């Protein structure tokens, strides 16, 4: 089992493709997306009940090594600053296959 980092991001659904671009440009081996998430934060409630995706969040996480995790964190900060959302990093053991 390899020691890796899990990077989790929550952002409004309209901007999820931006996050994917950042992950891919940092050469992660993969990622998992859960498209429909609700939530609340600085920008208020995202109830996901609109006809538009403006008030809907998406959740995405990737498992990668610490170097990539840091690079991703740096790359994603300005995006979060501009459009909102959160990014957290934690330790995981990857059951390599």
């Amino acid at each position, binding site marked *: 089992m390899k020691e890796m980092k899990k990077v989790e991001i929550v952002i409004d659904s309209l901007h999820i493709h931006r996050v994917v671009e950042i992950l891919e440009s940092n050469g992660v081996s993969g990622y998992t997306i859960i498209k429909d998430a609700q939530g609340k934060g600085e920008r208020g409630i995202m109830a996901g009940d*609109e006809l538009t995706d403006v008030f809907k969040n998406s959740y995405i996480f990737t498992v990668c090594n610490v170097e990539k995790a840091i690079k991703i964190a740096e790359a994603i900060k300005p995006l979060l600053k501009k459009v909102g959302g959160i990014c957290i990093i934690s330790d995981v053991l990857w059951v390599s296959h």
Partner: protein
Amino acid sequence: MDTLLQNILNPPILMFFMGLIASLLKTDLEFPQPLPKLFSLYLLISIGLQGGYKLSHSGLDINAVKVLSLAVFMATLVPLYTFFILRRKMDIYNAVAIAATYGSISAVTFVTAVSFLETIKEGFGGYMVAAMTLMESPAIVVGLILLRIFRDRNNDNGINWGEVLKEAFLNPSVFILLGTLIIGFVVGEKGWESVKPLFGDLFRGFLALFLLDMGIVAGRRFWDIKNMGFFLIAFAILIPLTNAFISIGLAKLFGFSKGDALLYSVLCASASYIAVPAAMRLSVPEANPSIYVTMSLAITFPFNIIVGIPLYYHIINILWG
């Protein structure tokens, strides 16, 4: 007064009230996604096919061209003049977003007006759907040009114009309307008849379902209204009225038919709550969506379908004599 009642006492409008009450009473009544998406896609496809089919009969004569040009004219004028009004009261970002919202249109408001005309047996041109389609995008472009011009240079965190223009001209609503207009135009009688049971006969029923959901969603935003300040509330009612009056004037001047005049005024008076918010969220994230969506969804939309439509029609009746 009678037309007002006639407008209110039909299932779709009453369903809207029912939805409104449902969420004001905090019942758990809701249409979970993607049901609202299904209803709105259905309405867009249905209105597009019907419009195209009607167009294939009426054809694109000089009169149609006139209407379409005036449609684009208002869709460009409204975001411009409203922007300068808004700018006095708020930062450029929200000013742009709100201006674009009111410059564009609401398909469901249009659809409600169409079924109002059908109820009172008043005809209208097949090109009106084309007019609606043309009116969706300009406001977005105008808004972003204004943003580019007036934003202080030093923080130009560049707009991705490619993405934005795609959002403006290739957003699902515009694309479906355009596509189904063409399809409706080419398939002719036989083709239309084959899908009419779904896209024609069920139209009113689906409109009722959709308005029920609209009522629920509008109700959820109801309490945000009072946090919004007098100016924005007034704006959300007076600007639609102004746009309606201007457009009725133009319609009279250029000799529109009654039905065309109503639909034209309704388009100008309506505000977008799907296409534009999505585009604004992407290109002007600094603006606060819960302001411009609440204004168009919880104030302008109900105002138009309940008071606006019969009111505009009443005025038209008087002017056209």
